[in-house]
């Protein structure tokens, strides 16, 4: 699992310095290209198939009017929401795993998903058939609920600083609480609302619109800038608090900012696509192996998250019967992968 050491070179510009890892950059670029390809295929396929070349032409603004309508008005929002949610979840997962120093942690465990689910189900079922404020209102409510729950976990786990172990266990218990509330709401509700709520609960990219795309995009862009700036300080955290402090990292502050960003990013992802399971968990782990990086790579995780989400959506729409939500596909991929990770981690510890 090592690249040739002479490929790595220190680069210094002014006060900043980092390691140049060509393999990492190459893999990330390849993943980005693949994501773009899947993005185009995803747009081209539907009830009415647009040729790939026409898709590309339309994307650069040279397309015909029919294609432009189908692509820009009908299919682009869905695909873009997929990409945005995937990037947000992937980066959020990479951050969470770095902070918890545990390859199996993910925002699903931190209560964000559970809080968003409970709130969304409340909105759907309390609306009595008509959802309050439509789809945008639903995702705003889910975002608020998810963030509040995430912050609750954060403050409950805070005891002279954030400790990864305590964070996860508190997160598990808060998730269980929100799940009980969700179940209760479903029991009380009308069965037609239950079906709608259940569809949202598994995560889906159906019927998205441009306003949702823009809202999610802006929030995510700001967060990514914050994360990229702070993540320079993140690497030493993997050595533990003492070493990080010795290297001049204010670990408590850095961890707090990164964790907050992770919570917010997961909130963006969940409010855009619903609580799609496993993307945040799987994306950093797979990219870690692909880029041969010792820690979850932030940018590559985001790109892979997008690829995973729109790829799964494509599979759900084309291969699988009766139009299953994308979350089912990611769970089918993610579940076995998690098991594999666990077995591998345990066996390695035994060796």
């Amino acid at each position, binding site marked *: 699992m090592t690249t040739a050491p002479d490929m790595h070179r220190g680069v210094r510009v002014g006060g900043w310095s980092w390691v140049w890892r060509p393999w990492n950059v190459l893999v990330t670029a390849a993943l980005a290209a693949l994501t773009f390809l899947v993005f185009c295929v995803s747009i081209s396929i539907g009830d009415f198939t647009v040729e790939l070349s026409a898709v590309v032409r339309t994307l650069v603004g040279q397309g015909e009017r029919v294609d432009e309508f189908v692509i820009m008005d009908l299919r682009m929002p869905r695909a873009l929401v997929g990409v945005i949610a995937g990037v947000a979840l992937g980066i959020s997962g990479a951050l969470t795993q770095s902070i918890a120093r545990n390859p199996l*942690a993910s925002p699903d465990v931190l209560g964000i998903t559970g809080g968003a689910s409970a709130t969304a189900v409340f909105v759907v079922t309390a609306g009595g058939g008509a959802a309050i404020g439509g789809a945008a209102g639903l995702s705003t409510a889910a975002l608020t609920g998810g963030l509040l729950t995430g912050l609750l976990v954060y403050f409950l786990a805070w005891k002279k600083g954030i400790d990864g172990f305590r964070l996860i266990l508190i997160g598990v218990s808060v998730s269980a*609480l929100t799940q009980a509330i969700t179940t209760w709401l479903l029991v009380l509700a009308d069965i037609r609302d239950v079906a709608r709520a259940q569809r949202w*609960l598994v995560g889906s990219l159906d019927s998205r619109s441009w306003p949702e795309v823009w809202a999610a995009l802006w929030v995510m862009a700001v967060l990514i800038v914050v994360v990229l700036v702070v993540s320079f300080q993140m690497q030493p955290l993997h050595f533990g608090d003492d070493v990080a402090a010795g290297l001049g990292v204010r670990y408590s502050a850095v961890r707090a900012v990164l964790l907050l960003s992770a919570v917010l990013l997961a909130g963006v992802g969940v409010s855009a696509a619903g609580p799609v399971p496993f993307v945040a968990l799987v994306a950093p782990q797979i990219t870690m192996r692909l880029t041969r990086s010792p820690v979850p790579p932030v940018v590559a995780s985001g790109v892979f998250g997008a690829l995973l989400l729109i790829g799964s959506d494509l599979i759900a729409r084309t291969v699988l019967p009766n139009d299953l939500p994308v979350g*089912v596909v*990611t769970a089918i991929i993610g579940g076995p992968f998690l*098991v594999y990770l666990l077995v591998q*981690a*345990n066996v390695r510890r*035994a060796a």
Partner: protein
Amino acid sequence: MVVEQRAAPPGPDPRRRRLLGLAGLLVLLVVASVLSLVIGTRSLTPAEVWQGLSGDPGGDQRLVEITLIVQTLRVPRTVLAVVAGIGLGVAGALIQGHTRNPIADSGLLGVNSGASFAVVLSVSLFGLRNPVQYMWFAFLGAAVAGAVVFGLSSLGRGAGNPLTLALAGQGVTLFLAAMTTAVALGDEQTLDVLRFWNAGSVQGVGFDVIGVAAVFVGVGLFLAVLNLPVINLLDLGDDVARGLGVNIAAGRTVGVLAITLLAGAATAACGPIAFLGLMVAHIARWFTGPDYRWLVPCAGLLGAAVLLLGDVAGRLVVRPAELQAGLVIALLGAPFFAALVWLGKFRQA
């Protein structure tokens, strides 16, 4: 070498404390059972309950009604709460001993999501509508999911690490939940069964279901009793236990079998009830200390009492409607668990 004394009973005589605790639990159980018979949408006096239990109603219209309520509603749910509570409490204590893991619980082991998935499959594929029919599937699903998580988290030297267990359970639960949803989305009737099943309730099943569950719990209890002396040694760690002459593979197999029977039967009859086993095992440890020969029976009795009280509370909080016992327990248990974490009761292995 410094040996830390675990949960040292502060009283002068631990034996007396334990006996007092056991007696207190029995009293609590009796009180809870009486409350469960008396309180409901239509509250009865103890005298009326007695009449309903014992008597031939004769021609008295009021007595006929009371007899009906007591015998077909109150008695079954009380008996089921006791059976399932004992099952989950004992299973909770056993799981913690075998995994040497303070956060082990049948819910965290994926038992609940496994049962839900099996119920959804059986309802959707075979059109089963009756709890007696799908409880077998629920039992099977619970057992398989529990065994998978238990096995995964005890592989290699990761065994005993609370984090591995929590995450393995979480992963399997998420996976099964998504599959469950995928099946349920296709069919409204399945979805309707699923949402009530998921709440976890001791109400609404007859003695046919309760009888089957009781047999399984009985066999499970027998195995648990056989297993008790071994757990005390296994709790010292596999190496020490082996050194003391314990057949580890046999002890573990009997234990896992007992846990599967107990938790599986309770879940199959009631639906998912998370955190009960975990909660009562920790509370019982406060007065029994770490000796599993005392801990396991006390956890069982406490489990029955807490489930009964949870069910009674559920009848009271949203009157005249009811809050399912499983939800009451989860709403109480999750904060309890978080408090234990915050107080630093669990340590990373």
